[in-house]
């Protein structure tokens, strides 16, 4: 089954639309769903032109395609998604794929903050950039992402994979400040530069194939390792936090 949601032009164009109902599973029982613009409840078809092709009886067989102007203000798309596929032909708003446990979300444009927050399984592919707190935890600092994969082909913002405890996050471009802060498990890979990686880490592995700017002084240099054809410098830390995580960087600079 393929559900196409094409956004209609909206009058109050900047109020975000919370659309946690947009999860493949929900379309198994039709398209009579609600979304919210601010404090107003709207029918799905007030916001989108809805087209359904084919049918399905399990989420795995549902693909939701979102398109149109203004998709960047759609929040919470794919929240608690457990199977199927969501494709966004453009940008997506905050909290896409929160608490996701299965299935695939593919975003052709950029993703706003908190992409895949507290994700436990499944796959998110972001072809553009991801904003702050990609694959992070929630306020209060417990476990962030615990499983699944997030792959960002552009850049990522600050606090990437904050508090990550499991799963894999891969960013092909640069990442911002505090990538992998409070990390205690899982794997974070940044293909280009980032700043202050793995601050306060307890465990897990963080790879920076570019330069770690503002490298923290509390990581203990162990030596060098070969990793997928690259020579990386291996650190253990964060010593300030009694951490036993692994940080691998190609190059680093202290703020001395």
């Amino acid at each position: 089954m393929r559900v196409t949601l094409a956004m209609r032009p909206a009058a109050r164009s900047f109020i975000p639309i919370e659309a946690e109902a947009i999860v493949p599973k929900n379309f198994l029982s039709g398209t009579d769903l609600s979304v919210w613009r601010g404090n107003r409840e709207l029918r799905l078809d007030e916001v989108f032109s809805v087209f359904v092709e084919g049918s399905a009886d399990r989420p795995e067989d549902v693909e939701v395609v979102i398109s149109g102007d203004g998709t960047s203000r759609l929040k919470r798309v794919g929240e608690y998604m457990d199977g199927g596929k969501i494709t966004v032909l453009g940008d997506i708003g905050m909290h896409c794929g929160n608490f996701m446990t299965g299935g695939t979300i593919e975003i052709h444009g950029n993703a706003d903050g908190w992409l895949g927050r507290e994700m436990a399984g499944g796959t998110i592919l972001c072809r553009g950039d991801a904003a702050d707190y990609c694959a992070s935890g929630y306020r209060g600092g417990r476990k962030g992402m615990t499983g699944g994969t997030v792959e960002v082909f552009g850049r990522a913002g600050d606090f990437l994979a904050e508090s990550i405890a499991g799963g894999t996050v891969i960013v092909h471009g640069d990442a911002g400040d505090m990538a992998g802060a409070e990390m205690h498990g899982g794997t974070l890979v940044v293909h280009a530069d980032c700043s202050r990686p793995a601050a306060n880490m307890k465990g897990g592995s963080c790879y920076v194939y570019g330069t770690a700017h503002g490298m923290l002084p509390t990581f203990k240099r162990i030596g060098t390792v070969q990793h997928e054809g690259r020579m990386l410098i291996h650190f253990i830390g964060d010593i300030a936090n009694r951490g036993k995580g692994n940080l691998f960087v190609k190059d680093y600079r202290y703020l001395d």
Partner: protein
Amino acid sequence: MTFLMITGRTVNQGVTVENKTSAAYAAETSTCFMHEFDMLELGLADNDAVRVTGPCGEVVMRAVASPEVGMGTIFVPYGPYANHIIAAGTHSTGMPDFKSHEVALEPTDEEPKTVHELMEDLGGLAYDR
């Protein structure tokens, strides 16, 4: 020349903060405190006008030498002048970079605007000018 702009509290800002339409408040919050060597370099004397250009635009302030400020840094009391050029991004924390903006400085003959003028530039309407 580029500088790191830090904004913060001063006694004079606090003393005038409940009277924001006063000349004293405008004077205090349009002061760009800097190191005397930096001023020399830019050819600025105390109270000379200086154009400060930040990520979101430019504003004219008055330069004043201060022993508290290190070279390469300027300090501006909290207020509408600094905020005229500060970016609204918060790194998704709610808090803008009030203490870490790269700005460019150049001497100018223009006068600093009044608070009313700044507000009207952004679409406001002054009440008791």
